[in-house]
């Protein structure tokens, strides 16, 4: 539902540019799929493209770009530890129905200088504008505390980040942004959105899909553990028995 709204917002931005001959966006991504293999330690994603000015107009220095990469949304529970009888333990909790597993935003200028708060909220630009869909009946200020806690933690894990100078625009025409995706992100469908911003308004936008998936042996193991869990368990036991027995047999001979 929320995704649909966002795409609708993007579509609504398009006619605006057609009428007033506003600049157009030609975006691309370095990879549309990221493969997780045995030595995966994260990936680097390059978002780049060109800004086309209709009628051969000279590039406008006022044109800015923001890019957003977001991962699949997940429902989750955030728990908060408090000291009870000298021990730190989970006491309160809050549910969120749609927290993105990964969210990175890069822009050519700090977001607060690019767009007003309302536009930022519509396009979910910036960490404070993430729509996490709180699911419990907590008081709003409690919910905000949990939201801040979740965002702060994911930020330190590099699953969420903002890079206010991450997009470089060359000669007002070419833009590029480099985003790092850490190793512990979940697999799934990611989206890379690019927004063209002029005078505080989003005048064009584009979405590209990126798929992050396990391949080869890693994919096989994850698949087997999920689909053939009993066989997987038996194989794990067999492997450990074999290794244990093998080592003792080799050492006894030697």
């Amino acid at each position, binding site marked *: 539902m929320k995704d649909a709204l966002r795409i609708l917002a993007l579509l609504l931005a398009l006619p605006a540019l057609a009428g007033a001959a506003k600049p157009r966006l030609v975006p691309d991504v370095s990879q549309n799929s990221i493969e997780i293999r045995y*030595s995966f330690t994260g990936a680097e994603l390059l978002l780049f493209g060109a800004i086309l000015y209709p009628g051969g107009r000279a590039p406008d220095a006022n044109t800015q770009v923001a890019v957003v990469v977001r991962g699949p949304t997940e429902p*989750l529970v955030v*728990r908060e530890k408090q000291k009870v009888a000298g*021990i730190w333990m989970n006491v309160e909790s809050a549910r969120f129905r749609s927290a993105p597993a990964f969210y990175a935003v890069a822009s050519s200028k700090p977001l607060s200088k690019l767009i007003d708060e309302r536009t930022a909220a519509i396009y979910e630009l910036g960490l404070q504008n993430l729509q996490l869909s709180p699911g419990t009946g907590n008081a709003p200020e409690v919910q905000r505390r949990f939201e801040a806690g979740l965002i702060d*933690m994911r930020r330190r894990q590099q699953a969420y980040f903002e890079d206010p100078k991450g997009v470089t625009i060359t000669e007002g025409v070419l833009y590029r942004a480099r985003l790092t995706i850490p190793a512990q992100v979940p697999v799934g469908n990611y989206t890379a959105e690019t927004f063209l911003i002029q005078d505080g308004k989003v005048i064009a936008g584009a979405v590209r899909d990126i798929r992050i998936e396990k391949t080869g042996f890693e994919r096989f193991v994850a698949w087997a553990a999920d689909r053939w869990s009993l066989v997987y368990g038996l194989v794990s036991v067999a492997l450990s028995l074999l*290794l*244990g027995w093998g080592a003792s047999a080799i050492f006894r001979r030697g």
Partner: protein
Amino acid sequence: MDIYLPIAGLSVNALVIVALGGVVGLLTGMIGVGGGFLTTPILIFYGIPPAVAVASATTQITGTSVSGVLAHRRRRGVDYRMGAVIIVGGLVGALVGGFLFRILQESGQIDTVIALLYVVLLGTIGVLMGKESGTALGIFKAREGKKAPRRHNPLIAVLPMRWRFYQSGLYISPLAPFLLGLGAGMLTVLLGVGGGFIMVPAMIYLLGMSAQVVVGTSLLQILAVTAATTIIHATTTKSVDIVLAGLLLLGSVIGAQFGARFAQKAKPELLRMFLAIIILAVALRMAIGLGWRPEEIYTVQLL
């Protein structure tokens, strides 16, 4: 050398994991404990999700206990009748433990319960073992007029329906070893430990089993229960990481062989003192984790 763990979902340095397995294996060979109480917390400190750490450490213990069981079998140091009773208890305990694990996980208290159990169990065992080995080494003075340990515990003697366990030299109710196995089985699921560090003293001091069969029988129980627990984890929590378990095993089965050779040259009291110090260190680290303000106040659990 980074290797991606397909179930844990992150990359680890393979050499660190193999080395960890090696150190734990060395202890296993030297002292005869499974070392799960060391592997699981260290894996969690390293950043492996707790459920994956518990499940994969269980798989590793199966592997390390194999060679021990084989060695004890050759020396006729396994009481199969007693072992069977304890294993049945252990399997029931594993199922109960799995049920408890889910309830605690849903209420968000699993981490606290695990840490508390570790502190209490390891703290107690560590202090007892340290005292005993310290006395044997002459560091502490033995108390005068100490009662000789009773061969028959009155609590166990009152249990009905006695069976004969020839190799253990016992005529007791099978309920006692059954309950003991039940407790150990629960710990295996909850903590990712074999439970040898509790079983062995309990078999000696509570059941009064003859010393030659204690370690072998305990290892047999660990082997069976950890294998069953691996299957339970694989089918319910789906958190057994075969790559992680394989790396740990690679180190530990080799470490265990060297440990066994080393053990023949070292004084057993010294080894037990060494183990007591390690156990107390782990317990202390866990206690600090509970009492000090944690770095992360918030934790996330996916639904």
